């Protein structure tokens, strides 16, 4: 019984102390009446002061975005400041300070955002990723309330993703104003759809292109009508269906380069881009006997096997006639492997030497199986010359011919 009395006494004493403390809360001539320290952005914030005498003052008020001066509503000894909406609607600390008093007092309030989001700002990037569960895209969400404040930290946001038959939903919690999730690519290429949901509000739908990953090694093949080096037919190289390591056909338009090394070690190059994983590249036949070794690359990514090609001589032999004081050199008929005249355009080269020194090289293309060179007496004076004729990989020499 006594104990109970003692406790009640203690409580009463404590209450008295409290009221006293409140009364002595006067700083200068004013005292803050408002005890609430935390508000919500949707609330009207009022700061009430009790003033001892006819004290008039304003308050300086500063939120996250800026500062201003607020004027009071005065009701006898009570001075009320209604914080304007444009200051009180933003999340964060709101500081205030009286102005124009001998001893100014200051304080701060915390303005909390709403829990219920009105919009979910969503940022998704990069918009296309490689298949294979290594590459990922990142979804960043900023759920904002009806007053455009990021909602409270630690709010749950469900990140949903759909790909082919699988649908997934994983919760993330906002932290530092945002929530984010890394979404790893599936094994197959295609299109993934991503959206998020927070407190019943769904965001827009976003899609990510899941691209096939990079090419793996592949094979190459060749297609040609015949294997004669006629300088006219076209040889086509093509690849097998190029796939990534997970068997997805690589993306259309991938660039494949074919490197051809010939007998002399020189490199010829032709290129193609893939369609449905296959790249085609074309090159004209050589016009002389050749051995090619061909290898293709997706540069920096993968390579093919080596393909060896042989080109046979198209012409076995040809005749050369010297007429007109040896000033007209007629070559032909140039006949191909089946006995017919080879198509026009075969290059025939004539090298002219005097005193073992090359003095002139003349190129001509064949026409109707023949090529005729005329040595102009104004350029080639009368004398003794050596000639060499070269075409289709066959060289013929005619030494010490007198030209007059």
């Amino acid at each position, binding site marked *: 019984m006594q104990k109970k009395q003692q406790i009640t006494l203690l409580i009463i004493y404590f209450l008295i102390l409290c009221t006293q403390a409140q009364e002595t809360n006067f700083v200068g001539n004013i005292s803050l009446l408002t005890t609430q320290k935390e508000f919500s952005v949707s609330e009207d914030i009022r700061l009430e002061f009790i003033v001892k005498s006819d004290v008039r003052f304003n308050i300086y008020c*500063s939120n996250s975005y*800026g*500062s201003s001066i607020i004027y009071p509503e005065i009701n006898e000894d009570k001075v009320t400041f209604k914080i304007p909406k*444009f200051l009180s609607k933003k999340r964060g600390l709101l500081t205030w300070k009286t102005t124009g008093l001998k001893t100014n007092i200051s304080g*701060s309030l915390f303005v909390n955002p709403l829990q219920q989001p009105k919009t979910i700002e969503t940022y998704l990037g*990069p918009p296309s990723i490689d298949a294979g569960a290594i590459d990922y895209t990142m979804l960043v969400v*900023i759920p*904002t309330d009806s007053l455009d404040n990021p909602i409270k930290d630690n709010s749950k946001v469900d990140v949903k993703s759909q790909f082919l038959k699988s649908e997934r939903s994983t919760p993330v919690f906002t932290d*530092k*104003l945002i929530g984010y999730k890394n979404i790893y690519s599936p094994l197959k290429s295609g299109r993934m759809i991503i959206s998020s949901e927070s407190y019943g509000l769904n965001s827009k739908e976003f899609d990510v292109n899941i691209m096939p990953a990079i090419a793996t090694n592949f094979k190459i093949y060749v297609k040609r009508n015949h294997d004669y080096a006629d300088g006219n037919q076209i040889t086509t190289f093509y690849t097998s269906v190029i796939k990534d390591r997970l068997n997805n056909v690589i993306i259309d338009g991938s660039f494949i380069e074919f490197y051809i090394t010939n007998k002399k070690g020189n490199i010829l190059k032709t290129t193609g881009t893939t369609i449905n994983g296959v790249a085609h590249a074309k090159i004209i036949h050589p016009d002389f006997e050749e051995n090619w070794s061909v290898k293709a690359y997706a540069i920096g990514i993968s390579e093919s096997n080596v393909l060896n090609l042989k080109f046979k001589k198209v012409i076995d032999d040809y005749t050369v006639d010297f007429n007109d004081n040896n000033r007209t050199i007629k070559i032909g008929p140039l006949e191909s492997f089946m006995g017919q005249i080879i198509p026009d355009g075969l290059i025939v080269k004539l090298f002219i030497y005097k005193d073992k020194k090359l003095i002139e090289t003349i190129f001509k293309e064949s026409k109707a199986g023949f090529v005729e060179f005329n040595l102009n007496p104004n350029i080639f004076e009368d004398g003794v010359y050596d000639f060499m004729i070269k075409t289709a990989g066959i060289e013929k020499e005619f030494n010490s011919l007198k030209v007059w």
Partner: protein
Amino acid sequence: MVKTNRKIIRGVLMLTYVIIIGVLLFLVSSLYSFLNTGADRSKMLHTEVKKIDQYLPKVTWKDDGNEGRKISDQKVKSVENDYLDAWYVKHIAYKTNTRVGIEDYFTESARTNIYSILDYNKKNNITVESTTLKHNLDIEFFSEDGQLLVLTDTDALEYKKVFKDNLLILETTEVNTYRYILLLEDGFWRIRHMVKENSKPYKPQTLKATLAYNNIKGINYYPQATPWDMFGEDYDISIIDNDFKIINNAGLNTIRIFVQYEDFGKANVDYNKILKLKEVLDTAKKNNLKAVVTLFDFYGNYDVLDWTLNHRHAEKIVSAIKDHEALLAWDIKNEPNLDFDSRGKDNVIGWLNFMIDLIKDIDKVHPVTVGWSNTESATILKDKLDIISFHYYEDKEKFESDFIDLKHKIPNKPIVLQEFGLSSYSGIWRPFAGSEEKQANYYAEMQKVLTKNNISFMSWTLYDFDNVPKEVLGRLPWRTNPQKKFGFINSLGEKKLSYKHIAN
């Protein structure tokens, strides 16, 4: 006769024709050349960089990595740049209540928050002059696509002055912590969300620094040939060395030298000038002299938005020579109280206040003072300054009592008479005003008082000068001419009568 007349007429006609054609040709060619000047091909692409330092608060980065994608140093630099620009346009906006530039640094939804405050302030004629002096930045999150980041600014030091109808009604210093979401839009990092998370009162911890010795016997020093331009093109260390020998031989132990704000390169301090300053201090040390270094000479803006630039200037100079053995004390500004009328007392004192904090933050050893031009102003900021310095050019009879008054007001800090002297000028602008005898007499009597009260002193100045730059006292000859004759040694190098009383 007729023939000759005709010849004359023909000749005159031809001559006029030639002259007219000549004039026309000249006009056309000068028009042509006018149209072809001005446009320099190299300027067509506007490739020249036109960056001016406008706003350089102290920025420190917390380099502890971040969530999401790794961020490169170059990106961090561009975030810093845009973030500071955002502050700068915000300061300008609140100062002028206009919206210029806000849209470059705040996203569409964020800028409405600023606009609504600006509209209210404009309606009520409220302006806010503000600056930030320190930012401690940390990138907490950087998105994988490089378009979004979360930035915190912990304990940003903000200074604000709030005006209502152009009257200052509040001055406040806040230490605020902000968290931001920035988006990369049109190549700018723009603020999307901004949340003030914390706010603390500003409490600079000012350590007291003590003076190395209490019996300063000193002199304000400029070389004879280059007054107010000690570190300029005619800088010659051998002359300075020689002068320091004279000073030391005269029984003095201290010099006061001046660092000109613009001459030293403002916020981007010229390294060569610092080398010269160091060389002067080396020479002082060699001659057993210590130096009081006066900063911000010929500076007079004090505008709140100029502070960050001043701070970078002071920071570079102070950190460059704070460990020099010849350094005795920092004098922040010479006679700043003379700018009270033109620049506003609050501006100047606010400026000094933060400058003291800055310098004491960098140099915790050397004491800091301000060279007040009279005893009345010498009590300003007395609690913050380590040494109280004042100048005395009034009646020497009143000096002792004025000093005792001051000592009474500030009993616990060393007080230094940082400038005093008398011109020996007598001439057309002030006939019979001064003479070498009067000057010598002045010093003799002053020294008696100084010795009696054991007062540290620094007299003005060693030499008579041949010319005084117009920035010092203007162009009026009745003001500049007396200023030329304050020396103990005349411009020919001969000791004046007062030289006997250079020290006590």
